[in-house]
């Protein structure tokens, strides 16, 4: 119990003193996970909506793959991204292993199936005849897609929350592809793991609280937007 209280005190102190190392870690966490979420939204919404709106042979297999991807273990993603970015790997020429860019890449791989899967379900849930109605209003295919995405916006905000929540809290991939380098690729989760390993539980608890607070604040903002949009 003392340990937890000590951790909370430490967290409070680290926050109010605006500790430069903690601030840097927090900022990097936000930057990496935020960018990865944005990339996943771009890819996930496009792919999810396209799969939801088209019929093609093997569609069920694709949908199953997307759904399976929603539960991708971060360590598995970390392993394959590391192999890909390794000096002799297919993407080794990029030379980005152990950089924040590699972490963004890995986190985007984790978040994309989550966003894709939720988008797919959200667009599929819209009334089937809505597409006909939009086309009958004179919309192009692209206009139809945009209107459908707007109609599914409440569910898509859930996709943002799930995607961001998935990557801000993952540690396996970030540690494997980022290397947890101090002042360079250390984020809140990897720092927490390291401090716990060192037996610095108070710092680890402090970092965890900051992580939770961060996740809560971002979800609070998104929830506000989502609930404001909810049909009255």
């Amino acid at each position, binding site marked *: 119990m003392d340990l937890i209280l000590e951790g909370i005190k430490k967290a409070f102190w680290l926050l109010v003193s605006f500790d430069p190392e903690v601030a840097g870690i927090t900022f990097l966490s936000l930057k990496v996970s935020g960018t990865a979420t944005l990339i996943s939204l771009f890819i996930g919404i496009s792919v999810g909506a396209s799969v939801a709106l088209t019929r093609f042979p093997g569609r069920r297999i694709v949908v199953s793959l997307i759904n399976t991807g929603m539960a991708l273990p971060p360590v598995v993603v970390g392993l394959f991204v590391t192999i890909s970015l390794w000096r002799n790997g297919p993407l080794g020429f990029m030379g980005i292993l152990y950089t924040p860019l590699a972490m963004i890449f890995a986190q985007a791989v984790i978040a994309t199936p989550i966003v894709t899967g939720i988008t797919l379900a959200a667009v599929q849930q819209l*009334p089937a*005849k*809505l597409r*006909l*109605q939009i*086309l*009958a*209003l*004179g*919309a*192009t295919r692209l*206009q139809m897609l945009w*209107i459908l995405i*707007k*109609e599914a*916006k409440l569910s898509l905000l859930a996709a943002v929350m799930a995607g961001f929540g998935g990557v801000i809290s993952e540690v396996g991939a970030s540690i494997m592809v980022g290397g947890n380098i101090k002042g360079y690729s250390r984020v809140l989760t990897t720092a927490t793991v390291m401090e716990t390993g060192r037996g610095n539980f108070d710092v680890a608890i402090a970092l965890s609280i900051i992580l939770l607070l961060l996740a809560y604040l971002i979800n609070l903002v998104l929830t506000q937007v989502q609930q404001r*949009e909810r*049909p*009255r």
Partner: protein
Amino acid sequence: MNTSLPVYEARNLKVIRGGSLILNIPSLVVSEAEILVLIGPNGAGKSTLLQTLSALVKPSRGDILFRGQRIGTDIPLLEYRRRLAMVLQEPLLFDTTVYNNVASGLKIRGMKKNEIAPIVARALDRFRIAHLRDRSARTLSGGEARRASIARAFATNPEVLLMDEPFSALDPIMRETLLEDLEHVLRETRITTIFVTHDRMEALRLATRLGVMNTGEIFQTGSCDEVMNHPVNEFVASLVGVETILQGKVIRNNSTTSIISVSGKEIEAMGDAGLGEAVVLCVRPENVILSGIALASPTSVMNTFPGRVEKITPIGHYRKVQLHCGFPLTAYVANSSSSDLSLKEGTEVLASFGAKAIHVIKKGSAVDP
């Protein structure tokens, strides 16, 4: 816009889905300013026909010409769709305000805000929903949502309006007021309209031409009077409200009438069916007159039969009286007349109907699209 050409001309139109022929229209012509109402039961192919005409469903075979131009080749698909408007069975409003919903077709066409505002205001006024302009579409009642969806269609000033059972699932009062408004706007704007319904009364209110569909085919088109009183087959007859459909055989021919034997009874009807020919007799219930046996007086109407009341069903101001006169016969009787005749199940009455009130269908009559 060439208004001398028909708005639509469909030739040998077929839609095949999963190996089944679900739409088969050898020929259909829709003229300028016409309100063609298609009636038919569920699964008759009415919605498929509308979706095919609006180029939302690709026909498996055949052509559709829009003002003489082949859709998708002579006239680009998008340009064609922007010249029509479609109202589906569900309002399918977007998750935004009523104003934005009504404006959506105009925004899609890339119109500017200042151009859109007066058009939307007019459409909202026309369908009496101006007071709802800032309301979220999700908070509208069924009737209000229908009004918004129809206003959205009219806002784009379409050359053709395709309506797929827009009033289904509305309560009778709501339906009546909305129907009245739509009727008024359609007569005022003279927009060519194809309206699909399974409600006969709705069809008769709106139609300048009536069509009856079933199993993907149009069985008959014509004026309301023609289809109601001269159905081409038993299916059309039953759909347009002919309650008494009797199978018979011509046993004698007079100068202008034929005597037809139905279950051993002789019925006189106008027509030119040949001697011995099997026919179907259609008698509309409103053409059957009932009188009390005791009060019976000689009548010039030839077809008078004693019968027993089998069942009475109240239908608003009327009662539907099902009789057995040696053959089944149905009459509509005003509530007041029913009381005067003390009608109840088992009452003996005289049922009369004129020879001119009978429509004779020769067995195996050709389908006339």
